[in-house]
């Protein structure tokens, strides 16, 4: 998401990314982040909880106006009321890659999934910029 955010920001649009994994934003340079400790699949709050969703959105929009430098992160103060181990926040069955990892069939997942492929991310971004410039 953050890499897409960078492309949109570079196109001249101010961007704000709500982000449950701010470790990503530090590594990949998301322009503006509202960090939020809510479960995956329930990013802005419970279904039907209009008040709670608006509260998060308004706080994120405030972060957008307050962040004055590239890479700024505001940690939103909201606390999910349930214990992560009891909440029903996972898909009905583990994703294909999660199954492989659990079965031990990805011997070095960190290398396979992450740094090996993503290490060249800056080069990918440069390539994207060249393509964008050529399209203008």
């Amino acid at each position, binding site marked *: 998401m953050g890499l*897409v955010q960078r492309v*949109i920001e570079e196109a001249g*649009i101010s961007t704000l990314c709500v982000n449950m994994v701010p470790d990503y934003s530090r*590594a990949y340079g998301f*322009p503006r982040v509202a960090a939020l400790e809510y479960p*995956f699949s329930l990013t802005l*709050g419970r279904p039907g909880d209009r008040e709670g*969703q608006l509260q998060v959105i308004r706080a994120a929009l405030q972060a957008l106006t307050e962040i004055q430098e*590239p890479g700024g992160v505001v940690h939103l*103060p909201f606390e999910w009321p349930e214990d992560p181990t009891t909440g029903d926040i996972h898909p009905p069955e583990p994703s294909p890659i999660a199954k492989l990892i659990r079965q031990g069939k990805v011997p070095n997942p960190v290398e396979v999934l992450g740094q090996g492929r993503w290490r060249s991310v800056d080069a990918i971004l440069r390539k994207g910029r060249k393509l964008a410039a050529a399209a203008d």
Partner: protein
Amino acid sequence: MPAKVVEGKVVDSYRFSGPAAKIMRQAIPQEPQYDCIPWTPLKKPLRECRVALLTTAGISLKTDVPFDMERERQNPLWGDPSFRKIPHWVTEKDIEVNHIHIKADYLYQDLNVALPLQRFQELAQLGEIGALVPTHYSIMGYNTDPTELVCTSAPQIAAGMKAEEVDVAFLVPV
């Protein structure tokens, strides 16, 4: 229901991660992977800004070709890097969620948890933002090789937003 507020909270990136996701997230490099961060200052007050939404929930219209979950099942290291346009008027009954890493039920109950079209329409009616533009976007958030996402999908999304004179893009991952 008002959210519980804890002043001074620092977000734990891993509180809600399952065991496999924790391993995947160890793949995040410690060192910055960029030479600079793009920056477009906010040019006007929010109450005058035109806003577009982007979600990673893998949402498609029922009339769209869905994101390719079958190919990911065949090759778990692959994730569909394409994108879909989502008009501002859609509701839960118009969409499908093609994302096998999340619990999609919540989005079928209330799209606003990941694509808050109604909430932003309300903010526009209250005058807190200028307008919600006609077109919004979805990608699917699992991707181990970002090349096509960054070089093909993202520039098209940015161009679509520029064509609708978007001032602010609000991004919601799942």
